[in-house]
């Protein structure tokens, strides 16, 4: 069971001291999360919310000020634990005097991968990332998207169980985004666990089953996406076509259902939101005013709404920013 937990953060915090006066910057206030084998967790938060800082703590680039991190059950300072992680830094840079082939070969030597395996794996991975043509060109002069691909290729070299990617889709053009997204889907199918940050909600919606939302250094919501999105409000949305006459009166009747809200009206067609338990009442009223029910569906919050709500919540409750 414990073997199944690849990554665990327990109330991790990081306070930087910056400037000569040692002004304190609370980059990460309190983050706890658990990632199990096979899971894909999206790490979501606005700019400056502490995603990169906490990810650097996970890889032992930064010492957390508080809390504990376990990577494959070991502290991140353990090299063998890190060996099983593939990490893509935020806007990655590599030695620009090297070629992608040389970068991967160098990285392979740090992993202790023997020459024969490197010879096979390095071109194979570069080819998979679409860098076969550019394999022997120095990185100087590579575009951001190409560097991102080199970064992903080197993260896969050791065939790691866990991939930790800091904004893997930023800086890519639409085609590049699509390709990298598809690659990440494939990697999941291959059984790799994924932990990646983003502020693009749709990416997380399509790639993850769990999400952790970070706002000003605090993890404000986390859990399975499906549960988080339904948890707070169970609402349904109905599209109703009104009869030709007495439309205002009909609307008054429909909205008299407790909790019903008129969202939109386009001519005779209205869109209403009601608490799901009230759906039978709404359909009853619609019959009474001889309106036709066109559509009825449970309303799911979009991740965006969830995010806005959680972030605003923190602002109201505890936010001394």
């Amino acid at each position, binding site marked *: 069971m414990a073997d199944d937990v690849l990554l665990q953060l327990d109330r991790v915090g990081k306070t*930087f001291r910056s400037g000569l006066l040692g002004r304190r910057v609370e980059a990460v206030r309190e983050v706890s999360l658990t990632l199990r084998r096979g899971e894909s967790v999206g790490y979501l938060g606005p700019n400056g919310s502490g995603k990169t800082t906490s990810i*650097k703590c996970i*890889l*032992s*680039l*930064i*010492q957390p000020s508080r809390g504990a991190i376990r990577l494959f059950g070991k502290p991140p300072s353990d*090299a*063998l634990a*890190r*060996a*099983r*992680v593939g*990490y893509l*830094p935020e*806007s*990655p*840079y*590599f*030695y*620009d*005097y*090297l070629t992608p082939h040389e970068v991967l070969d*160098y*990285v392979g*030597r*740090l*992993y*202790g*991968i*023997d020459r024969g*395996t490197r010879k096979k*794996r390095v071109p194979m991975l570069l080819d998979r990332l679409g860098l076969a043509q550019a394999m022997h060109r*120095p990185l100087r002069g590579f575009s951001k998207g190409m560097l991102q691909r080199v*970064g992903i290729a*080197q993260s896969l*070299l*050791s*065939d*790691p*169980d866990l991939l930790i990617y800091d904004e893997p889709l930023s800086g890519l053009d639409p085609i590049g985004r699509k390709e990298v997204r598809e690659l990440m889907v494939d990697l999941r199918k291959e*059984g790799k666990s994924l932990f990646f940050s983003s502020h693009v909600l749709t990416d997380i919606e399509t790639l993850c089953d769990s999400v952790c939302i970070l706002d000003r250094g605090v993890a404000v919501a986390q859990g399975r996406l499906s549960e988080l999105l339904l948890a707070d409000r169970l609402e349904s949305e109905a599209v109703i076509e009104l009869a030709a006459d007495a439309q205002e009166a009909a609307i008054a009747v429909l909205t008299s259902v407790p909790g019903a809200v008129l969202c939109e009206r386009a001519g005779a067609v209205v869109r209403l939101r009601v608490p799901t338990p009230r759906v039978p009442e709404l359909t009853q009223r619609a019959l009474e005013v001889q309106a036709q029910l066109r559509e009825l569906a449970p309303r799911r919050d979009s991740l965006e709404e969830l995010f806005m709500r959680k972030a605003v919540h923190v602002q109201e409750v505890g936010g001394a920013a």
Partner: protein
Amino acid sequence: MSTFTSQGGVTLRTQGVGRSLLRIFAVAGNTLREAGRNRLFYGLLGAAALLLVFSVLLSDLALLDQKARLVQDFGLFIIPLLDVASAVLMGALLLYKEIDRKTLYAILPKPIRRSEFLLGKLLGLCGLLALQELALALCWYGVLKLRGGDMTPAIGIALLLSYIEVVFITSVALFFSALSRPVLSGVLTVGVFLIGRVSYVLADLLGAQKSIFSEVPAMHAIGRVLLTVVPDLSTFNVADEVLLGWDVPLHYVTAAAAYGLSWSALFTVAALLVFERRDIV
């Protein structure tokens, strides 16, 4: 468990002293490769070589029998100086460049210890400076031949000792660059170099007939302490002996080497301790 094999069948060998050395060599090799592909490095090397050739022209000013002497003096003065300057410059930038260009973010999360990375950088830079000193010495040798001079064992020893001084300065630069930003660490390294170069003056004062250090007991004590905590870089300067045609005995060379390498080890360990705890941001 000395190896780890992934589900996809990739075997990682990370444990053991041998593997540790291989990682250090990988980093050192990459450091050398970086300089090898840097045009600026060749530019500086070329300029230094030109400077040596320039000493030929300078020697034309000298009297006939002094020409070779002058080339010799000049080389023994300029080659160590150029190498020390390179050590300060490159040492100060050694870690800063990696952090500034964020290349470290991709390397340190790999199964490499920070100490291995730092030792690799140090080894790489020391290797580079050895190559540089060798290249300049060869160039100088050519000029020397041209002026009818020749290489003597003493000159070889002088170059060797100056290289040990360079290794020391490199470790000092590494320590300061693990601690602070490049300009400051450059200045501090030069500071240590200058103090080290003049500390023998203090030694002289301690033994002198008339000096505050020899006559006032308290000052004498302070002077003694200072002498033990400050490296004496004049140890590595045997130019006078070479010029006078004296022999530099082997036991002196080994003692000087041991002295220099001990000081280097001290600064390297301090650098490791600082770097181990440093946040890479």
